[in-house]
């Protein structure tokens, strides 16, 4: 119990003092996970929308594979990316192992299946409701799917928030491909893992509280935006 109280106090101290190391770690965490979500959104939204309308031999198998990849362990992703980017790997010449770029690649691979699978489901449901109407107006299959992304933009935002949550909370992949180098690739989750292994549980828990706080603030901002949209709708009636 004492540990928890001490952790809250430490977390508060770190935040109020705007601890430079903490600020850098939080900024790097947000930057890496934000960039991964951005790339993940690019591939995942387009891929999911396409899968919602495309029909080809093996489509069902691809959807099953995609849904299976939702449970992709982050350490496996880290290991694969490590093998690809290590000096002897096929992409070793890029020289980006143990850099934030490698962490972005690993987290992107982690969130793409999530974004694509949820987007496919979302777009598929909306197409059942309004696909014929859009086709009647002359929209091709992919145009229908992309218009449904616009139609479901608030749900898409929730999908991206889920992806961001998965990215910022994972530790296995960034630990393997980033190396947890202080000031270079150390992010919130790898810091927590390090402090725990050093036995400084209070600091580890404090960092956990800060991490939760950061995600909470992002959630709150999206909630405010959604409520604003909701009241605009209500006011329009």
């Amino acid at each position, binding site marked *: 119990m004492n540990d928890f109280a001490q952790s809250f106090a430490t977390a508060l101290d770190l935040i109020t003092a705007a601890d430079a190391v903490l600020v850098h770690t939080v900024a790097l965490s947000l930057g890496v996970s934000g960039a991964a979500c951005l790339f993940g959104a690019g591939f995942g939204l387009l891929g999911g929308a396409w899968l919602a309308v495309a029909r080809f031999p093996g489509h069902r198998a691809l959807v099953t594979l995609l849904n299976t990849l939702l449970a992709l362990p982050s350490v496996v992703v880290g290991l694969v990316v490590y093998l690809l980017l290590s000096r002897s790997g096929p992409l070793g010449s890029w020289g980006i192992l143990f850099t934030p770029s490698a962490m972005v690649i690993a987290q992107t691979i982690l969130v793409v299946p999530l974004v694509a699978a949820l987007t496919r489901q979302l777009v598929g449901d909306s197409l059942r409701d309004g696909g*014929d109407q859009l086709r*009647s*107006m002359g929209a091709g299959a992919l145009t229908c799917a992309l218009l449904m992304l616009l139609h479901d933009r608030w749900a898409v935002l929730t999908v991206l928030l889920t992806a961001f949550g998965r990215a910022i909370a994972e530790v296995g992949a960034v630990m393997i491909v980033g190396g947890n180098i202080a000031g270079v690739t150390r992010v919130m989750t790898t810091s927590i893992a390090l402090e725990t292994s050093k036995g400084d549980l209070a600091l580890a828990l404090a960092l956990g509280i800060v991490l939760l706080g950061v995600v909470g603030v992002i959630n709150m901002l999206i909630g405010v935006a959604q409520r604003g949209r909701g009241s605009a709708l209500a006011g329009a009636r």
Partner: protein
Amino acid sequence: MNSATLLRLTDVSVHFGPVRALRHVGLQVNRGDFVALIGANGSGKTTLLRLLHGLVAFDGSREVLDATATQVMVFQRPFMLRLSAINNLHVALWLARVPSAERAARAAQALQRVGLAELRDRPARALSGGELQRLALARAWAVRPQILFLDEPTASLDPSAKKEVEALLAGFAAEGMTLVMSTHNLGQAKRLATRVVYLDQGTVRVDLPTDRFFSKVAGASSDARADLFLKGALTWTLE
């Protein structure tokens, strides 16, 4: 063949799995027609509309004799994107490849036409049933289709909204637009249509000019089941 024929179906059947929704249907739609499709629930009216519009797979022949004729369909429950009323029209005009310079004026004109100009910025999905149906008609009219398909456009509307929609449809027909509409409202078919097509169990049983179809003379529709339907005496039977 009528030289003004826009669409022709010859011996067309539609199956949904084991269900035969339409059987050996032959029908043509001529320029300037206002065709009312009537029949009991499950008789195949909606499937025939979707078939004419090219939305369902079929066996047989469906010929579009004027390839330049634009077709649009207004569904029973119109689907609107989560955008404002005016932006839904902009999307429709964009899909119809209307030049961007013309879209704003066309959209505004269409909303004006259906009396929704003041609601242009309102979210489309926040509109009432009657307003939504008028917006769907505005969206269809904005692209200036040669053929407009309507699936029970006044179902579930109150009498005043029905009247407004009927007035709009009469206006479209007066401008020369070809309309094909399914309806359960026989009075509406009588008021608006130039031709009535009666469907029964997936087949076209009667295709007559409206005045002949509704003639009070017994047997004038030339089909005993159609006459029973008109009298409200058609009982449900298993084939």
